[in-house]
């Protein structure tokens, strides 16, 4: 075989060896001489103004280099505080102990203000305003109504700003429906983005550049933003981020946004530039819990069906708790759960109304699924309710209505609002394969038929998640270098925070060039050495970066074939690259080595290396249906999740949890990586059942669960995850892949709630699903909240 192939194989993780030897350098592992340490003074009140602040005693403490407050660093600190844990001051000192001691010496006079700590309270007319002069409850500014649907292509041609997202005639839709199923206040309790590595950075000004050592999900994006807030040129920063200890959205800072807690960057940056000394600023686990990315929402869903179960109309209302001015964008992704995408097959009428609501809690920002889990929790529990009420098997009801390849993504993303063809689905196949794996037909029983103390339940939910953007903005770049010894380097800034993109992108290069995967090296550790790459978010790496990597490799190959053709006295199109060199396709024995293809090197030789490059910024021509630029193919993550569990009706305790995750990934470029991604279904389990709720003391706004003891994440003990991987070739990718990653946690809350219902006939629509709520639902204990 002249060509090697690594696609579809479990090749070893590209930078894996360092990860298992302890040599992998996460940002905190860089040991910089004379590194100063930072500690942050945080607000003890959920709403307050700083009347006065005296830092003189702190500044006088030996070993203190700098005390930062709103007085000397107004670009980083504010005099008004919006949540317990908000920034008051920071001390930079010779060591952590000195910095902590200095924090104690800062005297602050606060004026406490009225505060509001829950979504419900914040929406009341007389609620205290989190930001003075601004109502807590905001209508989303980006709603658009889609119309002018082409009867042939089914694409929408017109978008009009309006009071909600949607299409069709919602009133008429419900009038004509045979069944209307409605559920309200489906509540996703605030919970935290998981990551083993807490956030932070070390910065060192080396006389020429600010060297920034930190984790990252998109180091170029972060560098641009940091340069802007520090007021220095983008050329004056080098962002160094070879390893990131988990991200799940939470390692995507927004330094320009004062509300969003990525303050470690601005604090360390300002201090380092002013002191001209290296500065470390890191969040402790407690700080991480107080201000890490979180999510929470409440949604209402109303769905209209025909007698046979055909879903025709959907009304969806989403209230996102942004807390103290957080991210208002996640609800856009909740649209994926609606008739705009997941149920696009039959849904003719859609209204989706989004509001975002501020409270005096730590800022909420989207993470894994970015609004999609919240949307799916609402829609997929309502669909399940419908299945029972219509007397249709929950799997069959979904098979009848779920999106198919070629159905229309209505255009939910306000960045473009372009509707497009869904390039691949396979949800029906996932439902079949998953049903078979869990023996759905044999084991599924109506809850009315269950009477034992411990009852097994089987639940299902389907899902879809974005995997790229429609139209412009799929920006990512790659450089592929071929050296004369036949080794190859992929130069690519895409972050690998565990999701495996460094490995997968190198597999794409190896496959394109027909060389062994082991020969592909990776240059990815800083911004100075790499071109721009997309933010690793929305599980888009395989698709957006994949095209850039593939085309850069093709570009390099093309150049090499031209070189070789001269030496071989052949035409480039007669040649191909492979394991041992460039060969003639018709006669693979006619081959020259890479070295010979290059010819002489050194002072009198050259070229010395080939540089292939590609900038992906538009839909690739292979992502256009019939080559028509208006007919865009857009890939999705998609599949079906089944959960089996036992509920003890005397204690309310859930056990024997087994998640079966069936996902169509188009092509599993690396099956082990795919399995690993699907195992993150546990993040949904964390939010569903581990009492994984940011419990706040209503009296004072303090987080009661600021550590990994009280706020629990899944260990190896909580459940098993079984994976069913489907590979239905996706035409929008060079190797038929689509995406996998964030989707795994999207259906879990719904599948879990549905499994509990199937076990005991109690519909829980408020997370976390605690034993208390189960016993309340069974009527075995009285509700605490409903008393009086």
């Amino acid at each position, binding site marked *: 075989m002249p060509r090697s192939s690594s696609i579809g194989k479990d090749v*070893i993780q590209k930078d894996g060896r360092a990860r298992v030897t*302890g040599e992998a350098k*996460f940002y905190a*592992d860089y040991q910089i001489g004379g590194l100063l340490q930072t500690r942050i003074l945080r607000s003890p009140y959920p709403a307050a103004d700083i009347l006065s602040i005296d830092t003189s005693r702190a500044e006088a403490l030996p070993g203190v280099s700098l005390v930062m407050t709103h007085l000397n660093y107004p670009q980083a600190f504010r005099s008004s505080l919006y949540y317990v844990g908000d920034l008051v001051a920071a001390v930079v000192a010779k060591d952590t102990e000195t910095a902590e001691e200095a924090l104690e010496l800062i005297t602050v006079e606060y004026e406490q203000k009225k505060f509001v700590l829950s979504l419900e309270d914040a929406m009341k007319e007389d609620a205290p305003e989190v930001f003075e002069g601004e109502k807590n409850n905001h209508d989303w500014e980006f709603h658009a109504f889609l119309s002018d649907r082409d009867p042939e292509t089914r694409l929408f041609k017109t978008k009009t700003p309006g009071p909600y997202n949607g299409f069709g005639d919602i009133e008429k839709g419900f009038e004509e429906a045979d069944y209307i199923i409605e559920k309200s206040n489906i509540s996703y309790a605030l919970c935290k983005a998981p990551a083993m*590595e807490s956030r932070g950075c070390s910065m060192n000004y080396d006389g020429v550049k600010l060297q920034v050592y930190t984790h990252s999900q998109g180091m170029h994006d972060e560098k641009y933003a940091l340069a802007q807030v520090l007021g220095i040129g983008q050329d004056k920063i080098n962002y160094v981020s070879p390893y990131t*200890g988990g991200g799940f959205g939470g390692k995507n800072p927004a330094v320009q946004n004062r509300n969003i807690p990525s303050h470690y960057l601005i604090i360390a940056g300002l201090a380092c530039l002013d002191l001209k000394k290296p500065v470390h600023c890191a969040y402790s*686990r407690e700080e991480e819990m107080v201000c890490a990315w979180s999510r929470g929402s409440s949604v209402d869903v109303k769905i209209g069906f025909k007698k046979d179960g055909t879903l025709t109309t959907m009304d969806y209302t989403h209230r996102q708790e942004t807390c103290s001015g957080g991210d208002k964008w996640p609800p856009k992704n909740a649209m994926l759960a609606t008739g705009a995408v997941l149920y696009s097959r039959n849904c003719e009428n859609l209204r989706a109304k989004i509001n975002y609501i501020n409270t005096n809690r730590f800022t909420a920002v989207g993470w894994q699924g970015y609004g999609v889990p919240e949307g799916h929790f609402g829609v997929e529990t309502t669909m399940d309710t419908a299945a029972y009420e219509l007397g249709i098997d929950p799997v069959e009801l979904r098979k009848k209505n779920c999106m198919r390849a070629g159905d229309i993504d209505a255009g939910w993303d306000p960045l473009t609002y372009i509707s497009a063809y869904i390039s691949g689905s396979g949800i029906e196949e996932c439902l079949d394969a998953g049903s078979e794996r869990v023996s759905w037909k044999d084991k599924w029983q109506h809850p009315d038929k269950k009477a034992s103390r411990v009852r097994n339940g089987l639940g299902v939910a389907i899902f879809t998640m974005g995997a790229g953007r429609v139209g412009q903005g799929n920006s990512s770049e790659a450089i592929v270098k071929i050296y004369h010894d036949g080794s190859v380097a992929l130069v690519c800034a895409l972050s690998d925070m565990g999701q495996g993109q460094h490995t997968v992108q190198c597999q794409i290069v190896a496959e394109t060039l027909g060389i062994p995967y082991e020969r592909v090296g990776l240059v990815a550790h800083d911004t100075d050495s790499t071109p721009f790459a997309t933010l690793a978010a929305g599980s888009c790496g395989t698709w957006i970066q994949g095209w850039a990597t593939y085309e850069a490799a093709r570009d390099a190959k093309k150049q090499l074939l031209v070189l070789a053709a001269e030496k071989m006295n052949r035409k480039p199109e007669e040649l191909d690259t492979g394991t041992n060199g460039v060969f003639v396709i018709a006669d693979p024995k006619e081959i020259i080595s890479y070295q010979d293809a290059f010819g002489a090197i050194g002072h009198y030789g050259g070229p010395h290396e080939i540089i292939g490059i590609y900038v992906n910024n538009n839909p690739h021509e292979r992502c256009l249906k019939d080559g028509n630029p208006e007919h865009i193919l857009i890939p999705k993550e998609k599949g079906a999740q089944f959960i089996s569990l036992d509920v003890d009706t005397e204690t309310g305790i859930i056990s024997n949890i087994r998640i079966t995750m069936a996902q169509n990934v188009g092509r599993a470029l690396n099956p082990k990586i795919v399995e*690993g991604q699907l195992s993150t279904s546990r993040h949904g389990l964390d939010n569903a059942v581990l009492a994984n709720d940011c419990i706040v003391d209503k009296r004072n706004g303090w987080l009661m669960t600021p550590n990994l003891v009280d706020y629990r*994440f899944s260990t*190896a003990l909580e459940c098993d995850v079984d994976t069913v991987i489907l590979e239905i070739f996706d035409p929008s990718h060079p190797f038929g892949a689509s995406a996998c990653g964030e989707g795994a946690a999207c259906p879990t809350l719904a599948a879990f709630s549905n499994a509990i219902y199937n076990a005991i006939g109690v519909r829980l629509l408020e997370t976390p699903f605690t034993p208390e709520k189960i016993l309340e639902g069974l009527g075995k204990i009285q509700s605490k909240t409903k008393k009086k």
Partner: protein
Amino acid sequence: MAKTTENILPSGEKEHVTLHVNGEDISLLIEAHWTLSKVLRNGCSLTGTKEACDAGACGACTVLIDGIARPACMLLAREQVGKKIETIEGLEKNGQLHPIQEAWLEEYGAQCGFCSPGFIMTTKALLAKNPNPNDDEIKEALGGNLCLCDNYEHIILAVKSAAKKIAKGGK
């Protein structure tokens, strides 16, 4: 000479200790309240030991103390004098990965890799005590280690594969 906990030093004052880490004696100047994880990372430049929770709740800082898996963020460095301390950096010998590390690499046991050193050290302690653990025994032994990438299926496979490698003559 080994210091004992009875010798309480005033805050800020440092003392000389010698820790026995990965087969070597390392002389260090430390403060009484410094944790072992801090001293390993900052004093010994052994940054493979990760700190993630400061509460002994996640296992990222797991090291072996006289063969027993312990969270280094919960141990005072000065109390480890005279004990045999093993960290992730002590596993690879002459450029040859330890069988547990090999298994981790082959089974894709690391996603982001931040928890891997801790898991690998816990596994080393487990397999020394129980060379052929079943699934439940593995889950129980690893129950104190968190992997927030949720990579537990691969991790359990890696432990089993490591057990086989060691049985076949690995270390």
